[in-house]
């Protein structure tokens, strides 16, 4: 009855918008600073940072030290610069270029 009316709607989804911004990591992968919105999951930021640091580290091990890394996906570009063992990482979502499909009613 009255109590049930408080439980009207289920929790809204965690559909997450890709942010545009940057964050810095130390050599241990800890996030030092970030311009990313708070709504973007920390776990995702750490996962990105872990991949980036691993790529820099293993490149160095393979005798190919890198100072910059650009990772291109269909909908996102990641640019990372090595900073004394850590990194600064920029996230740049791609602007939509759709295939020729009938899409919306806008």
């Amino acid at each position, binding site marked *: 009855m009255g109590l049930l009316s408080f439980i009207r709607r*289920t*929790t*809204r*989804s*965690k*559909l997450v*918008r*890709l942010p545009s911004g940057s964050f810095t990591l130390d050599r241990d992968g800890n996030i030092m600073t970030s311009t990313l919105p708070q709504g973007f999951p920390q776990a*995702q930021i750490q*996962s*990105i940072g872990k*991949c980036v640091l*691993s*790529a820099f580290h*293993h*490149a160095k*091990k*393979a*005798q*190919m*030290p*890198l*100072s*910059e*890394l*650009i*990772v*291109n*996906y*269909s*909908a*996102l570009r990641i640019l990372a610069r090595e900073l004394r063992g850590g990194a600064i990482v920029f996230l740049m*979502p*791609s*602007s*939509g*270029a*759709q*295939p*020729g*499909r*009938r*899409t*919306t*009613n*806008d």
Partner: protein
Amino acid sequence: MSVQQKILLLDDEQDFLDLYQEMLGQHLSMLPEIRTALTGSRALSMLESDKYALLILDLHMPKMDGLQVLAIARRKYPELRVVILTAVRDEQFRSRAYAMGVDQYWIKPETDQEMGLFMESIETLLSSESQGGFRGVHSKSLVDIIQLECLSQSSSVLKISNGAVEGRIWIQNGEVIDADAVGLTSEPAFQRILTWKTGSFEVLPADPGRPRKIFTSYQGLLLNTAQALDEAASQVVAQSDSDVAAASDSTVMLAEISQLRGVEFVLACSVRKKKKTQEFWGIENPKPVSDWMEGAIEQFDQMGESLQVGQLQQIVGTGPQRKVAMARSGDTRLCVGFAADLSVDDLRDTMKTILSKWVS
């Protein structure tokens, strides 16, 4: 005897499901069976247990959102048509959904006219599905696909993807009128696309405004291309100055790539029928580099899937001694080293050329 098509509707609002179940069930000429699911996990288990022609899903849902469902469905059921039907008017989500392979992205209709357009598009999707043949993301002979489109007097645009490389073929009223791929146009582009041995394709709506640049009939085009491919296969290819051991196709390809401006080394790792092969030029000890390349591509691949940002296209690294680019081409992972002073634009263009050579 035709089998009744099934559509799966996924949304977290029961009222919406009831409305669209009725509308789709009554107004589509094929009278498909409409089933519904309130959660992503339920929808995935329904997809597991039965064959559906079409999945229509919302984006905003609790626990498992639409992009998560899309990522899983795309991977497990590549033939399944997927339409997003959402209230989310956000360009970023639309481009991510397309990057992840959705067929259509619709905002939930608010007027009769919008509803009519939506129904029409679903009708078109289902009718193309029921005609069978080679729709969707299938690994099929391109020659078969082109012949089918032309014989049926269709007008469409075939988008063919091979890893990071893409091409398009314009078909108008059963005739091939133009093609575009890796910097080539017209007949050369058509011939280049037909040299790709693997990949995926999509049938896009026709582009009636496209000017005609190919005037050869489609039969003539296919014949010319077949002859050109036969001639290329029988030619003796001159080897480069590098110390290449055997004149295998890949080895010759590596030699050709090494001649491109700025290329310092090339490393190609393939896995075919569980057998790993590695070919390289210009690098003394490829193992550490190939380990790094495979690890990096795998990690960034997984990350891309979890971020729902579509396919990993390319990784470019810049160092004091050189630049490095990595990409996947079919079964092969390529790592190319470039001179440090090569500009990013030149690197990108050269990498495109390399990938297009590799897939052909």
